[in-house]
């Protein structure tokens, strides 16, 4: 049998997760917070970190992965330095969301689901961002950009190096 990897979570990650446990009556309830803590520091959730979280929260690693893979905003594969989520739901679609995604594709060479060659952007669709009154909208690393045209979207992305 192989020896388990020593440090699957950094001490900082583990400490931050431990603090979240106080908010819930059961350990596993902190798993979304734990996945997000790791992702904030590493950009995504690699297998070793998944095992580390599962150990810390006393849950089977497969059950944790079933949770991790369920959500739109937990990344189980490496992503670029910036993740661009473009809203593809109805209000943004009515207001020209397809043209925004097409411009990003054309300019950075990324189709939805892809990361560009120098690892700058990952482009992913996302359901309704709740910004329908200022459609179309994009979420970049959690920042909302609204009232977009293809030009304005490209301009907004230029600030993310």
């Amino acid at each position: 049998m192989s020896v388990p990897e020593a440090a699957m979570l950094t001490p900082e990650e583990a400490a931050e997760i431990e603090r979240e446990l106080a908010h819930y009556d059961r350990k596993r309830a902190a798993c979304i917070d734990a996945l997000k803590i790791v992702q904030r520091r590493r950009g995504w959730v690699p297998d070793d970190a998944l095992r580390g979280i599962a150990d810390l929260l006393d849950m089977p690693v497969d059950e944790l992965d079933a949770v991790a893979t369920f959500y739109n905003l937990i990344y189980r594969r490496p992503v670029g330095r910036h993740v661009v989520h473009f809203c593809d739901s109805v209000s943004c679609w009515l207001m020209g969301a397809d043209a925004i995604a097409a411009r990003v594709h054309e300019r950075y060479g990324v189709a939805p689901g892809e990361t560009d060659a120098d690892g700058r952007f990952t482009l992913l669709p996302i359901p309704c961002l709740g910004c329908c009154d200022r459609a179309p909208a994009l979420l970049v690393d959690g920042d909302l950009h609204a009232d977009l045209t293809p030009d304005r979207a490209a301009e907004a992305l230029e600030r993310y190096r």
Partner: protein
Amino acid sequence: MERPLTANIRPGEPPLDAEAYERAGGYEAVRKALREMSPEDVLEAVKASGLRGRGGAGFPTGQKWSFMPRGDDAPTPRYLIANADEMEPGTFKDRLLLEGDPHLLIEGMIVSAYALGATTAYVFLRDEYRLAAERLKHAIGEASERGWLGEHIKGSPFSLELHLHTSAGRYICGEETALISALEGRRAIPRTKPPFPQLVGLWGKPTVVNNVETLCNVPHIVNRGADWFKGLSRSSDAGTKLYGASGKVKRPGAWELPMGTTIRELLEEHAGGMRDGLRFRGLLPGGASTDFLVEEHLDAPMDFDSIQKLGSRLGTGTMIVLDDRTCPVAMVRNLEHFFAQEPCGWCTPCRDGLPYVEHILGAIEEGDGRPHDLDLLEMHTRYLGPGRTFCAHAPGAMEPLQSALHYFRADFERHITERRCPYR
């Protein structure tokens, strides 16, 4: 005209801090409830007000609360959850409240938790609402410092812990039993009802899940009473409503107006009518999972019963408007793409049926449709309809489809006979 939900909200400005909120009369309902009212009194006040759930289903809030076990023998702890997982496409009303007046939600939760005998409460917030999360977190901190949350609130025997949980993005988490699964750290799969969450909810304990807008009404009902609340409305459904409009109207936005305001008034006066050169074709009255309404319905009041009579649902009250230059088939394809992406995966009709529906709509839109396809789609509106699936996800998905097949039939047929989209 009174606008109790949005009275403190100033567009483009940060929300009131705790001190300013108190100066504006905030937290009076907590004071009043704790000093002068028993939990049963609060429950009765909410029942008498006729408040119906603002998350989409319109279930009477007081009745929902009344199923919560009470008295010394009732299981503890009991939980209250604010459903702030606003992900219904076309819906952005709770964001307005969360960003604009977080203390109102907190106050509503304290008073509601008191009525329910809940000692722990969670706000279940979608992760994409970053500004709302920041403001809510700050407001919870302020409320705790000022003694509105925590042990023995303002010297009373009542204690409440309030936590903010940010989710990680899935539509199904808005379904209350799926939300409970998600909060427990499980895959967000809906649960069988009964038992209802009021009896067996979070970690098996009594739990009430209410929408943000619903909870924000509670302090006002406690302060001003049932008659005042009913008087706000123009219809048999009480209160005001946060309505909204998106799509190619002149002024998309959200407005607090008397319940029962007509669709025409919303569309023409508040949203400013259609953009120049475009004509109104139809709308979804309350989010993606509601049936289309058309021209002949414009004078209907936007309340639960009136919209239901027209074969649709008030839903969230935020309308999505279709114009005459946009292809209705393509719009329904976009809606079904969303629904096909977001099932929990548990039950077969929904998991397998929705992608098939999306596929057929895609074929029609791309000019590869066959006459038989419309029958197939009709068949699915029945197979994925109410009673055939584990939860309301697939039936909700069928609402815009079945109504589009009815009102925009000629558009579907033209796609098939001309073998192309006539709008391109």
